[in-house]
């Protein structure tokens, strides 16, 4: 590569500066005159300026396609109550993280939690059930760690005398253990996360699986006397009859865990399936009225709570007509 290539064409460089300046605010008279003079000086200046504007227009489409992937969704963070629960009406609102235990309970009452229900527990054990009904739900406790529930996930949290114990009843969660070990049970698969370990777990009908993201996690299936130690990138699946473990690449982990970052990552997914996934997370649904479009495939990273942006990208890519209404979004 030559020095010129590294530095770039000087005419292009000036054109980029003019476009950047024009983008900041309207040009003053003197600047406008200077630009005009520069453009009239040489046809290449004019071409470079037009090209710079076209590149800037490309940046807009680039940003649209990126679907805000670099703008993490700010999730409401709900402190995880570890004291005995108080009766609270439930609604989802944005709360701030707080570490003080008293303010922590007060915050839980004030903010409430979507789908939280109290369940009977033994005298030594307080248990709660959380269900994410309106997008993701983030539970946090400075001691326990962080729990992120995917839309629809159903999780029971039991606080015994020892380590906290979680029962994943349905859906998927992302767990990051705090300053203590954390136990997770689901469909006969039991895992113990040591401090700072992290995993993604999923419980379906009669089967379960977990993907280790960090730390060494012990796993034991129903009926087993001894378990096994799982390491980062191990993916264990269990269905009461078979257990399998395989290694997953970091790229696949990024894709599988995208939802925990507020994103959906599609790799050659049929549009109809992609829409179904986006719709899971949003009250504002996308209705597909174009059967041909449903069979097309799409790849990309999208914000899971912005169906309008997703619809715009589909319109952009496949030329679909988009109808926005108060009731939802129609693609045809």
């Amino acid at each position, binding site marked *: 590569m030559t020095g010129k290539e590294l530095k770039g064409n000087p005419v*292009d460089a000036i054109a980029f500066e003019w476009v950047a300046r024009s983008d900041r605010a309207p040009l003053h008279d003197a600047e406008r005159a200077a*630009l005009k003079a520069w453009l009239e000086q040489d046809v290449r200046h004019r071409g*470079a300026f*037009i*090209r710079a504007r076209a590149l800037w227009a490309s940046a807009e489409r*680039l940003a*649209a396609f990126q679907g805000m992937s670099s703008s993490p969704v700010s999730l409401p963070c709900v402190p995880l109550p570890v004291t005995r629960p108080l009766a609270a009406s439930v609604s989802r609102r944005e709360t701030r993280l707080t570490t003080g235990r008293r303010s922590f309970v007060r915050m839980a009452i004030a903010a409430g939690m979507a789908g939280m229900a109290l369940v009977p527990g033994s005298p030594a054990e307080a248990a709660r059930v959380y269900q994410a009904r309106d997008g993701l739900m983030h539970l946090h406790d400075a001691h326990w760690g962080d729990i992120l529930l995917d839309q629809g996930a159903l999780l029971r949290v039991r606080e015994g005398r020892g380590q906290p114990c979680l029962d994943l009843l349905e859906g998927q969660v992302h767990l990051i253990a705090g300053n203590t070990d954390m136990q997770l049970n689901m469909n006969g698969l039991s895992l113990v996360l040591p401090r700072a370990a992290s995993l993604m777990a999923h419980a379906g009908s009669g089967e379960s699986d977990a993907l280790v993201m960090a730390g060494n996690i012990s796993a034991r299936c129903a009926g087993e006397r001894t378990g096994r130690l799982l390491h980062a990138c191990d993916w264990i699946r269990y269905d009461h009859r078979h257990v399998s473990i395989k290694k997953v690449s970091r790229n696949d982990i990024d894709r599988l865990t995208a939802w925990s970052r507020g994103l959906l990552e599609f790799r050659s997914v049929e549009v109809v399936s992609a829409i179904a996934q986006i719709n899971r997370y949003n009250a504002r649904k996308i209705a597909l009225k174009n059967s041909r479009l449903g069979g097309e495939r799409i790849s990309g990273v999208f914000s899971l709570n912005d169906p309008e942006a997703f619809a715009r990208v589909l319109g952009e890519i*496949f030329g679909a007509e988009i109808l926005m209404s108060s009731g939802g979004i129609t693609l045809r």
Partner: protein
Amino acid sequence: MQVAGLEDFSDNSSGQNAKIEWLSRHIIPHEGALRGWLAQFRDIDVDDVVQECYAMLLDIETDRIRTPRAYLFRMARNVVLQSYRRARIISITALADFDTLSIMDDAPSPHDVIEARQELENLHQMVTQLPERCRQVLLLRRLEGLSQKQVSERLGISENIVEKQVARGLRALSRLFSDENRVTARPCPRSGSRGKVTTVVDR
């Protein structure tokens, strides 16, 4: 020298914007291939030819262009030829090359039509290659529609820095689009995997 359409340059008139949008969709994606092709000619400055092509494209009715890539290559060929004609001294080898190489622009190319979704897939690949600060500024400015002033407030940096980052982002995009070896999407097979978006690296 009278420059047609100059008054529109810093205006955001709908006509200008439509033209700029057309260029960004139909010409910019082929620039890498064009530069690769032009690099084979002797005694020319590739940047000069590309800039002249853009200047000419501004003045023509793009609505009638069915195959922008072929049009771009043909236009570039003419610019090269004019350049040779203007040159006082030119090597015989260059002229011989020109006669041979200029045939190429009429040859069918798998890139004749880069479908919109594939081009967007390319852009998606490119955004990951931008410097982090540039990427933040570009996304805030172009995706969220913040003004440069708002971007500066959001990121806690001065407006001057934001403006410089925009220019830097344009330089990065320019390099990416100019690179003929960049990640390029190719038209997918029509059978077997209908509509599948596939990216491959051209080598």
